[in-house]
């Protein structure tokens, strides 16, 4: 009986004092990456303090071998990808159930070391600026609001306000501060055994886009098209021997799906007057060099279906290191026929100007084709950027050197229309313009002299440009070309024979634009 009582007492003490030991998972055994496009921006651009490093979204899937014990388990996961959006953590495991996850980002920074050492003893090391003599002075931190105040021998002194070379030496790291963000899981396991758990979570700062190169043959009216998926990892985490796939399509996302903001107050150790300011840590000002390598003779990756999107899977496991771009080829098609459609966009404010330099304009050429097999295409064309080259005597001359053209998602069978460049062989000269009526309700008469220097007849679409300009069209009083209205804007189709000049005339009543 006494023995039983002893054991009961011992057991009670142990239970009452029991602290669940924590299992530490040092790193993932395997990682997979599914990368989505960032629709906000057209191209990769400078990382800076505006949070641009958070552009883009990717799903990280990790496999970790962990020893589980029957019942409740606490697991500390290290080597989590930075930029994690912790509320998106997901564990699909029917054997073991995830009850809770905790993402802690109380980081060990100089400021936090100071803030968390309030009322603690420290060593003040003071160097006489002239003699170089060093004094080690025991002190207690009494305040860290704005500037550090120390208690030395019962008296108070601000730190760093006196012109001495001073530093603080701490004997320990305050509890609760971590060297890097930590993810902890509370898991309920059905039995004790070693398992491979699978986790997924979203991270910001990894994105991809498609880069196209089109080499045009104007005499044959065909082009060769190659396309690359370019992945950008702007985080400081790397992926080694990872399976990577990218999703083409526009996903709906919410503004709240972002990593936690790691704002830090900077403890000022300078003199008065003092300022407390916060800045985001983890902001870097490196510029991403956009070196897009679009070579040939790479194996092609064909798209798979992912619900209403397209999926491009990297052919082999690979490394995607921190601050790196990587490419795979997804298209390499030749002899795709195209047509050119010409347009001239104008704004009413512009054509009423007397400035001689604004009277001469050039038509803009768009490349048009249909995404069909008979056109040597007929595959999904994901959104991205395109560079156009013209083949001239075995050399490729870049056409759109100012900025790349935009490619939108185009499914099989869709009409493809890409902006190419100005064509200086089609000129539009504003011969005459006159304004009558009132300032709120002007009536504009204009005449354009249009010259086509090409050896072929074309149709030029003259289009109103300024949907958000000061004026909108109230009534077309007269025009000598067929009028259309698209996207709320008026346009006219003018037929131009080869090597010809044609006049376009119109009289338009405008009214103030209240959009």
């Amino acid at each position, binding site marked *: 009986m006494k023995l039983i009582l002893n054991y009961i007492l011992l057991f009670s003490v142990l239970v009452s004092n029991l602290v669940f030991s924590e299992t530490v998972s040092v790193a993932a055994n395997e990682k997979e990456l599914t990368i989505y496009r960032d629709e906000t921006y057209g191209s990769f651009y400078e990382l800076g303090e505006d949070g641009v490093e958070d552009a883009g979204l990717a799903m990280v899937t990790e496999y970790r071998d962990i020893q589980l014990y029957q019942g409740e388990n606490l697991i500390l996961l290290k080597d989590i990808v930075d930029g994690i959006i912790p509320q998106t953590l997901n564990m699909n495991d029917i054997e073991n159930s995830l009850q809770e996850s905790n*993402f802690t980002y109380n980081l060990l920074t100089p400021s936090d070391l100071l803030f968390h050492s309030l009322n603690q003893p420290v060593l003040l090391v003071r160097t006489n600026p002239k003699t170089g003599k060093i004094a080690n002075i025991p002190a207690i931190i009494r305040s860290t609001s704005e500037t550090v105040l120390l208690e030395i021998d019962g*008296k108070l002194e601000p730190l760093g306000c006196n012109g001495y070379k001073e530093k603080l030496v701490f004997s320990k790291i305050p509890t609760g501060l971590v060297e890097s963000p930590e993810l902890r899981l509370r898991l309920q396991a059905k039995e004790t055994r070693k398992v491979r758990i699978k986790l997924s979570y979203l991270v910001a700062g990894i994105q991809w886009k498609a880069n196209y190169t089109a080499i045009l043959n104007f005499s044959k009216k065909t082009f060769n098209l190659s396309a690359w998926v370019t992945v950008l990892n702007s985080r400081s985490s790397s992926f080694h021997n990872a399976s990577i796939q990218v999703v083409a399509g526009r996903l709906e996302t919410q503004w709240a799906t972002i990593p936690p903001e790691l704002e830090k107050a900077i403890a000022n150790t300078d003199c008065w007057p003092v300022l407390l300011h916060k800045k985001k840590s983890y902001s870097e000002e490196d510029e991403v060099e956009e070196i897009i390598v679009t070579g040939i003779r790479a194996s092609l990756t064909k798209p798979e279906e992912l619900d209403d999107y397209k999926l491009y899977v990297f052919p082999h496991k690979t490394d995607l290191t921190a601050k790196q771009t990587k490419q795979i080829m997804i298209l390499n098609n030749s002899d795709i026929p195209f047509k050119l459609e010409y347009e001239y966009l104008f704004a009413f404010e512009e054509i009423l100007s007397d400035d001689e330099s604004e009277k001469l304009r050039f038509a803009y050429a768009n490349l048009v084709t249909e995404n069909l097999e008979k056109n040597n295409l007929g595959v999904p064309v994901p959104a991205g950027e395109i560079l156009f080259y013209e083949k001239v005597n075995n050399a490729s001359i870049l056409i759109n050197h100012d900025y790349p053209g935009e490619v939108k998602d185009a499914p099989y069978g869709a009409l493809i229309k890409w902006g190419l460049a100005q064509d200086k062989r089609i000129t539009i000269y504003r011969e005459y313009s006159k304004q009558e009526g009132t300032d709120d309700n002007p009536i504009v008469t204009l005449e354009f002299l249009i010259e086509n220097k090409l050896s072929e007849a074309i149709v030029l679409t003259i289009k109103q440009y300024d949907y958000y300009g000061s004026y909108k069209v109230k009534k077309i009083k007269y025009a000598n070309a067929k009028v259309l209205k698209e996207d709320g804007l008026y346009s006219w189709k003018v037929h131009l024979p080869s090597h010809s000049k044609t006049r376009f005339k119109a009289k338009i009543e405008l009214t103030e634009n209240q959009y």
Partner: protein
Amino acid sequence: MKNKIVLLLILFVNLVMADSSELTLTVYNEDLALIEDKRQINLQKGKNHIEFIDVSPLIRPETVSLKADGITILEQNFDFDLLTPEKLMEKSVNQEIRIVRVNPGNGNQVTEKAKVLSVNQGAILDINGQIEILRADSIPTRVIFDKIPSNLRSKPTLSIDVLSKKDGLEAMTLSYLSTGITWKSDYVALFDEKNKSMDIQGWLTLTNKTGISFSDIKLQVIAGEIYLSDSEDEFEKNYKQKKSNAVFYAGDQQKSELLDYYIYKIPNRTTIENNQSKQIGFMEMASVKSEKFYSYESSDFSSRTDSEPVEVGVKFVNGYTDKYGFALPAGIIRVYIRDVRGNPTFIGESSINHTPVGAEVFVRTGQAFDVLAKSTLVSEEQSGSKIKYVVEYEFYNARSHSVEVLFNQENYHGRQKIIDYNLPPKTTHADLTSWVVPIGAKEKFVLKFTAVVEKNKK
């Protein structure tokens, strides 16, 4: 015998320590939490000054309430005049301090007494009858203060003066509101298009940025809009009017109704550190009937130069009457599907509002790569106050199976009447007409109709 006594003592001490402070956190959606701190405090008969140094730095001091039997509250103070060098100097005006100057030439230190004359954008001192600006010469100068003024604090401090009838331990409950703690719901939904079903897990995401940690707390969260008032009475009124209504269970979580709010109680105690985001599972629904939908909307009658992708998403009804039946608090639903390898892959997310039982939920996940729409305004004729629009919508489906697109034609300019259509509308209202447009695999369908609009009178 000695060993048994020792073990018993250890057990007893643990029990006492475990009961020394009990925290309950009630978190609202609007970056607000009610913190209730029950503790035992040793009081003396008569006046007592109690300081609470571990309250949230983001406390709303006007909401503080202290309850205990046998005491009378005399005064509550929240001191946030913090200890800084500038404040120290300001409090030392007309008082004496010491300065220690270091000769830059020979390194010798000289200690002098100084009287602080003023502190306005810099300190002006009287040193032996001579008026100087502190550190104007940039010579290293230490400034030494003898003591901390009584009303300056290293951290914001709550203090309460009470009158106690007797000596001894008194149980007290301190409650107050604080910002810096938020909660929201995040849902994970795995959609199976083939079987038209979805498994949904709900997670409470709690984020603590108050500056302090809350250890071993009882936690509950409240879903629903609350009226935020600076008046404590208003808050008390809203909080105290509890209805004892039906309690629904889902797994281990409870939900009860409080006016128009829902309370979700977390059964186990938990700890939330400062700068931590915590996710706790609170609900799970398996095999919820759900369906994919495609939709396209137009709010005017005009031509588009380019085709646009239609929207795609998943819809489901919240709650079965006999199985699950509880409101979904507002949050974000993230939808996943299995790729060809069977791996769940994220395909998009949407916000949902507080969703009652029985409501239909539409979760937009993105835009369909392969399903496009393009509008053409064929003609427009005005006759008096009415305008007749002849419109065509060309839908194209590049998928390998047929789809249906729910198309909504709205009109913000007036009442519309649809006539002369090649496909009958599904629903017709004065300002909204809907069609379900069927499109075969790799085919087009052109919807044609005429709309007569009577312009809104100004």
